[in-house]
Every structure is written in structure tokens, then in C-alpha cells.
């Protein structure tokens, strides 16, 4: 089974970050923290709430930083997994260094010429760029991932999706799974890479925001 993340209890989180119950519940209401991050576990004092530690601490930092010049609703838009409205030309994309030239040309080669990029093609290019950057997959395999994303994009909408690339005896294979779910793989199969689409969307949105 793929390894689980380290968790942090609500009490520890508040202590560590200095945020209050009021703030945490407000962020939950405004969807600044996704509902699936609130993980229920039984402890000796009854039910307690835990969070994925690393992602939650990162998110709290991010919200604290953004809170100065953005409203909570704007931050919610920033961290949500739903697309934002953008329109960028190829040149603008390259100039802003959001994706590499290699990833961009791979996308265009695979999907045909595109005048301007909206969120979805930009996200796919970004994902491919991230995949290639790991150095663990070939460009043909990256194309396979791109095709898989294309085929299932509509079904992925609004879900927390993870891209998994596995290889057995040199044969690569791309999986998409919606989280939370468990996955069991045979021992001889190597997990080459795992990429959370939600995290990538968030990263991409942050980069776009910095560009503006």
C-alpha cells in the first residue's frame, strides 16, 4: 500500500500555528481548508480531528500570508481545485517561466496548435512539465500521461486526483485515482512518480497570481 501521510491533531495544530478555533472553523466554512483534510479518528478521549500535517501547515502559512491583501473569498478561489479564468499566449507563458519550452512543445505536438491557453491546457502543460522535471519518465511516457488526463478530465472535475506512474520490467503505465482511496500494487511493480493534481493546481494559481 502506498504510504500514508503524517497527521497532526487539531490541538497540536492550533498550538503550533497560533490560530484560534474561530479562525479554523471560519476557514472550513469558506472552504479554505478542504473538508477531506478533516480526518476523524477515535482516541481515548473520544473522537478527535486530525489533519495531513505537512499540507495543513503549508496551507495555514499560505492563508496567513495572503490574508493581508486578499479577502477570505479570494483566497478560497486561489486554493480551490476549480479552474480560474485566464487567457495566455504561448509567448506570455514562456516569458513568465510557468512551464518549460520542452513541455509546451510536447503539448502542442500532441494536441495541435493553440493560439491562447486557458486554464485547462495550461494546467496540463504544467503537469507534464512537472512530470518531465522529475527525470523519471520519458517524453513518450509523458505523452501517455497527457492522453490519460485528456480522456478523464471531465470526470476529474472537482475531485482530488492523484497521477500515479508505475513501471514493471520496463513497461510504464499511468493511473489516475481520486483521493481518498487505497491502492495496493504487486511487489515487482515500481511506483515511479505520484503527483497530486490539487497541489499542482494550487501551485499554478500561485504562479499566475505572482505574474499578474
Amino acid at each position, binding site marked *: 500500500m502506498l504510504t500514508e501521510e503524517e497527521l497532526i491533531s487539531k*490541538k497540536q495544530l492550533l498550538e503550533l500555528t497560533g490560530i484560534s*478555533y*474561530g479562525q479554523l*472553523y*471560519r476557514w*472550513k*466554512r469558506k472552504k479554505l481548508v478542504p473538508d477531506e483534510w478533516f480526518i476523524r479518528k477515535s482516541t481515548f*478521549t*473520544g*473522537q478527535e480531528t486530525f489533519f495531513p500535517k505537512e499540507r495543513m501547515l503549508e496551507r495555514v502559512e499560505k492563508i496567513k500570508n495572503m490574508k493581508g491583501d486578499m479577502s477570505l473569498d479570494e483566497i478560497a478561489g486561489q486554493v480551490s481545485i476549480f479552474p480560474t479564468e485566464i487567457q495566455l499566449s504561448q509567448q506570455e507563458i514562456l516569458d513568465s517561466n510557468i512551464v518549460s519550452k520542452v513541455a509546451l512543445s510536447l503539448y502542442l505536438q500532441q494536441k495541435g496548435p493553440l493560439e491562447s491557453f486557458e486554464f485547462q491546457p495550461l494546467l496540463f502543460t504544467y503537469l507534464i512539465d512537472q512530470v518531465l522535471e522529475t527525470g523519471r519518465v520519458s517524453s513518450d511516457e509523458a505523452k501517455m500521461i497527457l492522453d490519460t488526463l485528456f480522456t478523464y478530465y471531465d470526470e476529474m472535475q472537482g475531485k482530488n486526483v492523484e497521477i500515479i506512474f508505475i513501471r514493471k520490467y520496463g513497461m510504464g503505465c499511468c493511473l489516475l485515482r481520486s483521493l481518498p482511496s487505497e491502492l495496493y500494487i504487486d511487489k515487482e511493480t515500481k511506483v515511479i512518480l505520484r503527483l497530486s493534481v490539487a497541489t499542482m493546481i494550487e501551485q499554478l494559481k500561485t504562479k499566475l497570481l505572482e505574474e499578474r
Partner: protein
Amino acid sequence: MNKVKNGDLKISGSGSAAGGVFEDVDISGSGKINGNIDCHKFRTSGSSKVNGDISTNAFKVSGSSHIYGNVDSEDIHVSGNVHIDGHVGAKTVSISGSAHIERHLAAEFIEIKGGVTIDESCSTEVFNMNGKFKIGGLLNADTVDVHLYHRSSVKEIGGETIKVRIGKTAFGLSKLFSPLVRTELTADLIEGDTIFLENTTAKVVRGNTVHIGAGCHIDLVEYKEKLTRSGDGTVRTEKKIL
């Protein structure tokens, strides 16, 4: 921009109609609508049934109404009785009478005089309650201000300021409810920055400043700054969080 003005849908007496896009929907008497409704104003007095979702700016029920779908409205006003099978999304919700929502209620301002049952959870900035309520999931609100007039229950409450008090009998509302049942709120968990409780039975209460008043039975209180007490309230275990 050209705006096409849609027609109104009016049912008076007894009648049924199909859903659709309207300017105003007005049902008086007994009416039934089959299908989704998208309109500017939805008003029903008497008794009505809607087999579908309603999307509107103002949703007003006087009398009794059963909506078999979701309701999405800027403003919701109920005097009488409403049953909604689906989710409810609104800015302001005001209920005098009773409401039963089978799914989630999301709003910004909720004011209730009477009773409300929400099978799932409720999220709002302000939750003002006079009467009784039953919430199957989490009540998540910045400000929770409850005056109890009857037995109420909620799984969890989370927010900034949470106040639960026993309702004043002079208010007159208590006459409506049976005096035989103990007026209390039961909850599994209450978490907030400032908490004031009366007549509350809870397993766990966590907050910065917590006041446990008369009629409370709390298994565990965890507080950061201050724990005060009044009346005959009991706390089995208290812990100061450092």
C-alpha cells in the same frame, strides 16, 4: 443588454403546473409544481408542493410547503412550516415556525423563532436561535446565540463565540412547548474561542474562555485562558491547556 421579461406563474385555489423560468411564482391555496423553478420571487401561502429544485432571489413561505429538491435563494423567509428534501443555500434565512431540511444548510445569517431540524450540517456566520433545534452534523458559525425553549441536540458546534442560554419564559414562546421535557441542549463536542453555556450536556467542550452555567453536565472541559462557573453546573474533568 436585452433582458427578456419572463411571465409569472400564479396558482390560486387548487392547481398544478410544470416548472420553468418565471419572473414571479405565486401559489395561494393548494398548488403543485412538477419540475425545477428558476424565478425572481417565489411565494407560497396555503399549501404547496414542488417536485424539483428552486433557484430564486426571494423564497417566501407562509403556510405549509414541501420542496422535494434543493433551494437556492438570496433570501429565505418562512412563517409556517417548510420541509425541504435537499440542500439549502441562502444569504439570509429567517424562520418563524418550523423547518425541516434533510441535507446541508449554508447561509450567512440565520434567525429562527420556533424549531428547525437539519439532518446534515449547518454553516453560517450568524446563528440566532430562539426555540428548539436538531442538527445531525456540525453547526459551524462565527456567532452562535441560542435561547433554548425545548430539548435540542446537535452533534458538534464550532465557531468563535458560542452562547447557549435558557430562554426567558416571559417571552411567551415557552407556552407552545411542553413543560414536561427538560429544556436542554445535548452535544458531543463544542469548540470555540468564547463559550458560555447553560442547560447543556456535552461530552467535550474546548475553548479559550469557557463559562459553565446552571444545568450543565460536561464530561471534559479544556480551556486555554479561563474557566468560570455559576449555578449547579457540573464538570467531570477540567484541563487547562498550556
